[in-house]
């Protein structure tokens, strides 16, 4: 696969000196889904806005399929679709006209079957002649997606597309994203929902304070940085962790009925056998044993708070 989006040393400073992007470098491969995670104010939206031409970069370069977003803006922008974070829509326009407008704005000839297909996939076909102001919040977000897809982009930016929408739409969205990926569309998604990144992304990028902290294959990231916890449920609660178990650095549940052991899945020795032997030697009786893999959210929180596991 080749890079369809190349961002090199991208910087953005606003009037007043606030530096929203501090030299971002990012290569996004054609056909992948990249989830960009970051806390509020990390620079996610600024990054997207700069690539799409809404914000002007202070320095650095962005190329979309080899086309510079400044020198060759027509070719670059023609390839990009954007679903903004805010629900920005002309309230008095009909749904279908709004989507047709988006296609026309990108210089694409009329294609009614395509518009119908997009609207049907997003469950908007029945609402095509409704004014946008009559739609619910979730429906309006679907319209934004339909508008972004109307000119058949090869790169789609979804800026927190499922923020504040119900579970049904979120699942629909994920299906649409998967379908677009199958068609070869590259998708860059910013989200606060880690489960979303976990469910649909190929790679995960973490951005904080205007800097990309890491970009990694999602599975690799989870394997490398993921910690696993072994929970030893006791048949009788304890008031404190026996001294003989201190080397295992256990945590105790608040009711004293379980001991939690954190270990590294990639380590040569996990220490589980020794732990279980020591638990038995301490005279504790096991009722059950369970394990839990740390989620992307745990990794994300760890990274952003500077712990880096």
């Amino acid at each position: 696969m080749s890079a369809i989006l190349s961002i090199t040393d991208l910087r953005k400073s606003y009037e007043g000196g606030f530096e929203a992007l501090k030299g971002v470098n990012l290569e996004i491969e054609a056909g992948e889904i990249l989830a960009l995670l970051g806390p509020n104010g990390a620079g996610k939206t600024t990054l997207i806005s700069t690539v799409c031409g809404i914000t002007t970069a202070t320095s650095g370069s962005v190329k979309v399929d080899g086309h510079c977003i400044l020198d060759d803006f027509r070719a670059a922008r023609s390839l990009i679709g954007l679903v903004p974070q805010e629900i920005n829509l002309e309230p008095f326009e009909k749904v279908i006209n709004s989507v047709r407008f988006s296609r026309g704005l990108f210089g694409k000839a009329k294609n009614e079957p395509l518009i119908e297909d997009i609207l049907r996939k997003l469950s908007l076909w029945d609402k095509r002649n409704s004014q946008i102001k009559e739609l619910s919040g979730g429906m309006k977000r679907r319209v934004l997606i339909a508008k972004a897809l109307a000119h058949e982009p090869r790169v789609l930016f979804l800026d927190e597309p499922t923020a504040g929408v119900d579970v049904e739409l979120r699942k629909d969205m994920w299906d649409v994203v998967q379908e677009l990926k199958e068609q070869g569309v590259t998708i860059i998604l910013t989200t606060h929902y880690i489960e979303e990144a976990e469910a649909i992304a190929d790679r995960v990028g973490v951005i904080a304070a205007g800097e990309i902290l890491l970009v990694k294959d999602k599975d690799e990231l989870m394997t490398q940085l993921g910690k696993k916890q072994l929970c030893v449920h006791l048949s009788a609660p304890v008031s404190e962790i026996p001294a003989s178990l201190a080397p295992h650095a256990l945590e105790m549940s608040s009711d004293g009925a379980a001991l939690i052991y954190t270990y590294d899945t990639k380590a040569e020795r996990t220490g589980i056998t020794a732990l279980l032997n020591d638990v038995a030697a301490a005279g504790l009786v096991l009722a059950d044993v369970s394990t839990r893999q740390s989620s992307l959210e745990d990794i994300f929180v760890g990274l952003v708070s500077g712990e880096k596991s």
Partner: protein
Amino acid sequence: MNWTAIWSIYRFEMARFFRTLFQSFLSPVLSTSLYFVVFGAAIGSRIDQVDGIDYGAFIVPGLIMLSVMTQSISNASFGIYFPKFIGTIYELLSAPVNFLEIVLGYVGAAATKALFIGFVILATATLFVDLTIAHPLAMVLFLLLTCLSFALMGFIIGIWAKNFEQLQLVPLLIVTPLVFLGGSFYSISMLPPIWQKITLFNPVVYLISGFRWSFFGTSDVPVGLSLLAIGAFTALCLAVIWWIFKTGWRIRS
């Protein structure tokens, strides 16, 4: 040139106009009728002919210009301010269109609406006064150029405005006085000599004079000068808009 984009913007803007067609039509008809009742019948009957023209007919070009200028400005300024206000401007900024294409779409639609209203007023006027148009083609040309140039000015105001109050400020405080003092309802030869000179600094004088010439064949200033003035004003507005898009002033952060 992205003609499809220009056409899309134009159609989208015209759709707004058609949604409120009745108000768009009714308002100029009503205000023109009121002007004729007040200035034409009540006051005009006491005024002699101006430059050999009945006063009722004399004010027709000025009335049309008054509405066309204010409509061009308000249509174009609202047209571009509204996407800024509701946030849909993101779509324009991220689309493969340049400043000229955006301007052609918005200004073209605003000018079309104003042109329509200009013709509605002209048609309404014929119900009240006898009118013959000496130079019909020149009349259409002047009307068209005025619509375009003032729509360009409106576009600039729409980008400059940070709120709805500012959107009204320039038309209310600058344009309306200039139009009223620009000879809409009188010939500048009726003014004292000193004011005749001062009024020549008002650019609207040249537009109204040229437009009136197309109706009656008489003008306050030479027709060539009127055309030059409107051309210079258009060029100035275009230059300002080009600069706005080059620097991203008040549209790109």
